[in-house]
């Protein structure tokens, strides 16, 4: 899939659709999951001199085009990923009256700490982080891990032969 197609795919995808966040039965905010995911990714795997730049990992694209459309990921898991994004924002709104992407770094860290202590939160973070790791360290044939920067960061050599096409 080329970049242009990816852009148009994202444009019409779940991640760019608005979700509405309610608290105590009252509509409080609207946000796109893409905004949430982008900020969440930078919080879970922040930029530093050593780590691969976010755009080379391409996590949001991977989550939307590969995971949420994958034939071998069951519908329950896909629903859980989507619901978790909504719940993360509901937690943010209930705590600070703003969606996750609009919180300060300190506030976001507190929200993450809080949800990680809940069963759903820990489990959801585990899933999301696993998919982010797949994007950072998977074969570039999946349009992730550009220039193998994730592998280089961890001194890893990909095995040969490399896949000719992504398994979707």
């Amino acid at each position: 899939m080329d970049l242009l197609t990816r852009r148009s795919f994202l444009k019409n995808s779940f991640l760019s659709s608005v979700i509405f966040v309610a608290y105590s039965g009252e509509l409080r905010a609207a946000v796109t999951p893409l905004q949430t995911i982008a900020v969440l990714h930078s919080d879970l795997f922040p930029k530093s001199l050593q780590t691969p730049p976010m755009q080379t990992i391409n996590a949001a694209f991977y989550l939307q085009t590969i995971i949420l459309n994958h034939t071998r990921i069951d519908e329950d898991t896909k629903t859980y990923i989507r619901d978790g994004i909504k719940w993360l924002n509901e937690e943010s709104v209930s705590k600070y009256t703003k969606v996750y992407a609009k919180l300060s770094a300190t506030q976001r860290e507190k929200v993450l700490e809080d949800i990680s202590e809940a069963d759903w939160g820990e489990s959801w973070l585990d899933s999301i982080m696993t998919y982010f790791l797949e994007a950072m360290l998977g074969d570039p044939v999946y349009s992730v891990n550009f220039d193998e920067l994730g592998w280089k960061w961890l001194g890893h050599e990909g095995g040969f032969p490399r896949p000719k096409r992504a398994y979707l």
Partner: protein
Amino acid sequence: MKYDVCIVGSGAGGSPIAYELSNAGYKVVVLEKGKNYTEEDFSKDEIGVVRRGLFTPDLKDEQHVMNEYEKDGSFTRYEGAENSWSFWNGSMVGGSSNLMSGYFHRMKPNDFRLKSTYGKIEGANVVDWPISYEDLEPYYDKVEEVVGVSGEVVKHKFLEPRTTPSFPYPALEVNGVTKWFDATCKKLGYESIPTPRAILSQDALGRKACSYSNFCGSYGCATGAKGSARAALLQKCNAEIISDAFVYRLESNENGVTKAHYYDSNKKSHTIEAKIFVLAAQAIESSRLLLNSKNKIYPNGLANSSGEVGKNLIFSAGGSGKGRIRFESLTKEQQRELMTPGLFVNRSLQDWYEYSSKGVKYKGGTIDFLFEHANIISRAKREIYDDSGNIMWGKKLQEKMHKNLTTSRVLTFEVFNDWLPTDYTNVTIDEKVVDKYGVKVGAINLYSHPLDVKVGKHLGKKAKNVLETMGAEDVTMSISEAPPPNLVAGGCRFGINPKTSVLDINCKAHDLNNLYVSDASFMPTGGSVPYTWTIYANSFRVADAILDELEGV
């Protein structure tokens, strides 16, 4: 057309028969549920192969139901799809042998006479095999030559007798860490054994040598060095292979099987007629097919007049452990050696294949030592929890991940000991769940005898001691009752008595005169080693018996 032989399943249990009989000029057809791949199809795609199950059925299409035995005598039911619990291995031509690591150990002479040697064990259905090690030895030898086993024979306390003094192919290259392992074992008084591998160390048999790709277990081999049933046997004979062919029923009359019915990938039904049928669909699926093939003459399933089909299913007991070797304790040269990718550790210990404790003699087992798998996503994933089990993120996680993955390497060990056959571990048919073809799925009933874990822990502690003495940190082990899905056998025991066994000494059904079962189903006990070499060897033995039958010997 009527074939001479129809084989259901193309893995290590079926392929030696396809190879021997087709090379002897007989018309052989192999029905395989999975797809047919060649070396060109295999890559090191961790996402596809390991994380998305490229070579295993989707559980929503095909699954098992697990019934776990509880202490109060009840069973807890788990549907595979709902609980993401899979017992599938390689669903493809060549079966799971494509994806094995190829750690090859022969069973020992005492493994064939477990009851005579170690006595009756309360709560376990241990019996002697109807054949001896000496009967199977020539076939172990044949596997070394035909499938290709590399290694170095060293004398040790439990070395089994061999026809030939050495392996036909020299040992694979090893990492520098192997020297440290050997020195540690010498210091501890243990006998370090180079692990035989079903991997060619040099070009031979029309196949390429190992390329040390650093990705072996779980992946198909792109050079053909790994002795999969596909690369070593099926690609070296002219047996007809029909892939995407799921056999759902064997039709029989009173005397024998008359037809195999299978669905193709479009769920269209076909039939195959043959003089002889060989079932080798993997232990669980072979029992399932026999039970699902019940008819008016055999209302309890084919080959099941004894009621033994599906009974005494076994796995390999034991577990695994690991320890981390860090740069801090190494010289620069040692650090370089440790991080060299591709080369193997290839060491085993069998010092406690039999041991005594408090005056009681126990059957022990094998410990294999290896590097943690190179899968980078899996290795990174293991770093996301701290020592207290809390999930981590941010710079703290990145620093831990980077340090552990770039300045240390994890050595692991795998323990193999007998999973004792009992009344509670077996295969039946689940009456509620069907697969995508509408066929009732197999139910796997699970129970682990207490001795399985006791022996496994004894071995695990010895392995831990080796790693700790080597200077490894964070040494842990996990020995449990969990059944490893890739190490399964039993369900159609062979034996002399038709009332207590399904198959005769040649693995032909007592009840039917043209049905053989040649996968791991025949094994009454499993030995304390991975099964593949024994499955291959026995299948070559059964091939000789079928040849005798076809030639009227």
